[in-house]
C-alpha cells in the first residue's frame, strides 16, 4: 500500500521546483503513477510511506507536443495513448503507434507517460527502443539560484543501466525531442506473457526508408529491448543492411548479427530465437509499410512474417 501525507499537483514548472525545494529529501515525483502504485504492494516494495508526492503530470509545459516536418517535441507527461490517436504524431514516428498498441492497454496508456517510461529505465521498457531508433534527446530541467536551467542528453547516454539514468537530484525530465521520420515504415515486434498489460520479454523497433525503386534501404534504424541491461541500437546491422540490395540472403545475415548480443539474466536461448525471428519480421513489416515493391520478399517470407 502506498502511503503519503500530501499529494501535491503543481500547475507550473516553477511551482514544481518550489515544492521540490520545500520538501527536499522527502518527496517523490509522480506522473502516470502506473508504475508507482503496483510497486508499493506485497511481493515488491510492500507498504511504502513517501511523505510528499509531487504530481507533475498536469504541468502544461509537460503536456505540450509539437509535430512538424523538422521534428517532434513531446512533453514528458504525454500519455502513451497519444501515439495511437494523434495521426500526425503517428506519421512522424511510424514505429510508435505499433509500440503503443502493445503497451499495457487502452486504459493504462491514458495514464502512463512517455517520460515516466524513460525515467524508469526498465530494460524491458517498450517505449525506449523506438525513441532510441529516432536518436531522441531528452531535455532535463533544474532550478539553480532561482533560475530554471535545461540540459539535453541523447537517450542512449541518459539510460545507463537497469533503473539507472543520468538524472541528477531535483532534476525533472521535461521533454523528449527527436527527428520526424515521415515516409519511413515502422514496426514494433514484442513478445510477453500476455497480449495486453505485460512488459516485453523481447521487443524490437524497426524504422526503414526505401530508395525510389523500393529495393534498397536508404536508411535503417533498429533497436532491441529486453535482451540486456539497456536497449541495444544495432548500428552495425544498420550499416550492413544499407550496403546492398534487399534480398533474402542479406536479411537472413542481418537477422543473425544481433543474436550474440543477448545477455539477459534469464532465458537466453529463447531470446536468441526470438531476436532472429523478430529481425526478419520487423524488417519485412517495416519495409512493407515503407512501400516496398510487392515482389521484394518471397511469398514464404511474407507469410512467415504476417
Amino acid at each position: 500500500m502506498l502511503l503519503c501525507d500530501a499529494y501535491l499537483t503543481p500547475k507550473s514548472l516553477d511551482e514544481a521546483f518550489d515544492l521540490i525545494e520545500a520538501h527536499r529529501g522527502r518527496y517523490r515525483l509522480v506522473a502516470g503513477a502506473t508504475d508507482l502504485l503496483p510497486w508499493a504492494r506485497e511481493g515488491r516494495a510492500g507498504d511504502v510511506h513517501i511523505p510528499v508526492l509531487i504530481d507533475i503530470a498536469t504541468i502544461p509545459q509537460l503536456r505540450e507536443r509539437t509535430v512538424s516536418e523538422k521534428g517532434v517535441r513531446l512533453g514528458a507527461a504525454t500519455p502513451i495513448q497519444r501515439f495511437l490517436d494523434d495521426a500526425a504524431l503517428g506519421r512522424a514516428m511510424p514505429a510508435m503507434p505499433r509500440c503503443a498498441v502493445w503497451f499495457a492497454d487502452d486504459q493504462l496508456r491514458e495514464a502512463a507517460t512517455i517520460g515516466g517510461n524513460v525515467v524508469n529505465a526498465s530494460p524491458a521498457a517498450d517505449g525506449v527502443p523506438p525513441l532510441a531508433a529516432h536518436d531522441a534527446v531528452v531535455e532535463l530541467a533544474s532550478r539553480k539560484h532561482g533560475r530554471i536551467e535545461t540540459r539535453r542528453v541523447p537517450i542512449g547516454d541518459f539510460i545507463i543501466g537497469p533503473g539507472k539514468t543520468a538524472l541528477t537530484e531535483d532534476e525533472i525530465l521535461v521533454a523528449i525531442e527527436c527527428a520526424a521520420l515521415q515516409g519511413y515504415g515502422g514496426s514494433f515486434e514484442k513478445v510477453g506473457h500476455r497480449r495486453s498489460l505485460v512488459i516485453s520479454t523481447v521487443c524490437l523497433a524497426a524504422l526503414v526508408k526505401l530508395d525510389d525503386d523500393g529495393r534498397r534501404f536508404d536508411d535503417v534504424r533498429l533497436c532491441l529491448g529486453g535482451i540486456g541491461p539497456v536497449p541495444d541500437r544495432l548500428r552495425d546491422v544498420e550499416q550492413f543492411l544499407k550496403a546492398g540490395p534487399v534480398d533474402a540472403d542479406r536479411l537472413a545475415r542481418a537477422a543473425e548479427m544481433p543474436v550474440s548480443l543477448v545477455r539477459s539474466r534469464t532465458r537466453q536461448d529463447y531470446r536468441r530465437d526470438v531476436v532472429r525471428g523478430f529481425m526478419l519480421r520487423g524488417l519485412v513489416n517495416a519495409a512493407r509499410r515503407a512501400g516496398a515493391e510487392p515482389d521484394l520478399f518471397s511469398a514464404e517470407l511474407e507469410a512467415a512474417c504476417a
Partner: protein
Amino acid sequence: MPDMRIEAVVNGRKIARSAQPHQRLLDFLRDELQLTGSKDGCGAGECGACSVFVDGVLMKSCMMPVGKAQGASIETVEGLAQKGDLSVLQKAFHKTGASQCGYCIPGMVMAATAALRANPFADREEIKERLGGNICRCTGYQKIFDAVELARDVQNGRLPATALAEADVSEGKFIGANVRRIDAPSKVSGALRYAGDMTMPHMLHMQVLRSPHAHALIESIDTSEAEAMEGVEGVITCADVPGEDGFGVFVHDQPVMARGKVRYVGEAVAAVAAEDLVTARRALAKIKVAYKPLSAVFDPFEAMKSGAPVIHDYAPDNVTKHIPIRKGDVEKGFAQSDLVVEQDYETQAIEHAYLEPEAGLGYVDHDGVVTIVSPSQNITHHRHMLAKIIAKPISKVRFIMSPVGGGFGGKEDMIYQGMLALMAMKTRRPVRLVFTREESIATTAKRHPSRTTLRMGLTRDGRIQAVAFKMVCDGGAYGLSTEGVMRKAAILGAGPYNIPNLQMDTYGVYTNNTPSGAFRSFGALQTQFATESHLDICAERLGLDPFEIRRINAMRDGAQTHTKQTLKSVSYLRVLEAAEKASRWEKGAPTSRGDSRSDLGGEGVRASCSLGARFSADVTREAAE
C-alpha cells in the same frame, strides 16, 4: 497533514468530500461514496474490475491517485443505467449470458462502453483488443464479445431492439434454449454487493499477520505494542480460541491461526482489527513473533522418505491419504501384453484466480449469534466446524453466503472465517476482512501438483490388458480437500476404459508448500492428463488411430467400473465421435501425418494472438472517406 478536499462531478452529481492523500480513486469511490460497482480485483492495473470514465476517458481507478481526479467528471457503472433502465450494452450482457460470477462485469461493461464509444462499428477483433485490459475468469469471453457485438448492431440499427428481449422458451424446453440469468441485471449494473462491498455501522477493519517461514516453531508472540496503539480495537492469536481448534474438509488439522508452529509461508499467525485499514496494517508491523526455523520439505517424494521433517505429529510418514484400489492381477495382465509402455507425467500447482479476492464480514448479533458473511462454497460444513472452534451450540452460529465472485473450489476452505468470528467476539463489533490479490494467491489452496508413473500393457490389437497407476500429489501444509481429491483421482483416473487388471495408488502428501485443495474436476485433471497422453503414445507405438484405440477400450452401457459401479448409460462413444468430427481428425496413427494437414485453420481454430485490429480499421475507414 490534513485530508484533501476532492471536488468532482460523479455520475452527473457535484460532490465535495474529504479524502486521504494516499487514497486511490477506487478507494474514494468505494469507501467515501459507497459506489461499490467498481471492484478491487488486483490493485495493480491488471484486471480492469475498477474501470471508470474520467473526463470521458476510460481509466483503471486502482491506478489513479485520488488527487488526479480533482475537478474531474467521473462516470461509474452506476451511472450507466439512467433512471434504472439498463443501457443497451447492459441489456446485451443480460441477453447473451455474459455475466457469470459477475465480479468482472461492471468493469467489462465499462470497457465495452468505451470500445463502442471509440468505434461504434468495431468488429470482433477490435472489440477484443479494446477489452484487452479486462480479465474474466468464468466465461471464456465469447459471450462477452457476443454481447458487445449484439449491442453494437442494435445501436447501429442493424438489429431491432427486440433482439435484446428474452427469447420465448416453450413449456419445459429449457435445454439448449437461451434462458436468461435472473441475477444478471444486478451484476451488469454493479448493484450486487459482494462481501468486500458490504459495510456495517461501527465496523472494524481486520488485517492478518502471516508467517515468513515455511516451517518454524513459534517461541513467543508479543502483541502488547500493537494492542496499545490508538485505533486498534483487538488483536487475536490462537490463544483466543475457546473451543476445539481445527478445520479442514476431511481432517481437521488446521488451526484458525498457527498454534505452536507454522507450516507454510503465508500461514495466519495473528490478526488485528482497527478503526481503519492503515492503522490495522501499521499495527501488524508492531507484533513481535519469535520463530525458531525448522528444516522444511518442499517435495512430496522427499517428504515420504524416512527421516524427513515431520509436518504433523499425527502423520509421522507425512502421508495425508493413500487410496489403493486393486482389480484382477496386473502382473498377469502385463505378461499377456504385446506392448508395455511406462511413462512419467507431471502437473503443476494452479491458482483458481477468481476475480473476487476472499472477503468476509463477522458480527455477533443481538441474540449472541456469531454470524459470518462470506463467499464460502461450503457454509453448512463451516458452520459445524466453527461451532466447535468457538465452543458454542450450533444455534448460536450462522453463516450467510454472500455472492461468490468466482470460486472454482478455491472458496471451500474455512481459512479466514474463524478469525472473523474470534475478532467479532473479542471486540463486540462488526469486523471486515478483505484479502489483497497477493494475499489471495499466496495463502489459499491450489490445484494439487502431481507426479504420476503410468505403466500400461496392451495386446497388438490395442486392447488394454493391465494398468499400474501411481500418482503422488503435493498436498502442501494442511489437509483441506486432499483426501477427497485422492479418492476422486483413484476412482476416475484410469478413464472410461475397460481395464481387466488394474492397480491404482494415489497419495496426498504433506509438505511445507502452500496447501493444495479443491479445484474443478477434483483430481481428474491430473490423472486424465496422464491416462489420455499415455493412450496417444500407445496408439503411436501400435500404429493405431488414437480415436480407434479409445473406441476399442471404451466402456459401453452396462460396464462395471473398477470400484464395482455398474454404469447404466455411457456417453463416451458419442463424445469421441463428436470430438473427432469437430477436430476434423485425419484418420490414422499419429505418425501417419504428411506435410499438409486439413485439421489446422478453419472453423473452430483460432489464430495466434495479434494486435493492431484498429490499424486495419483505420485503413478501412480512411479508404471509405
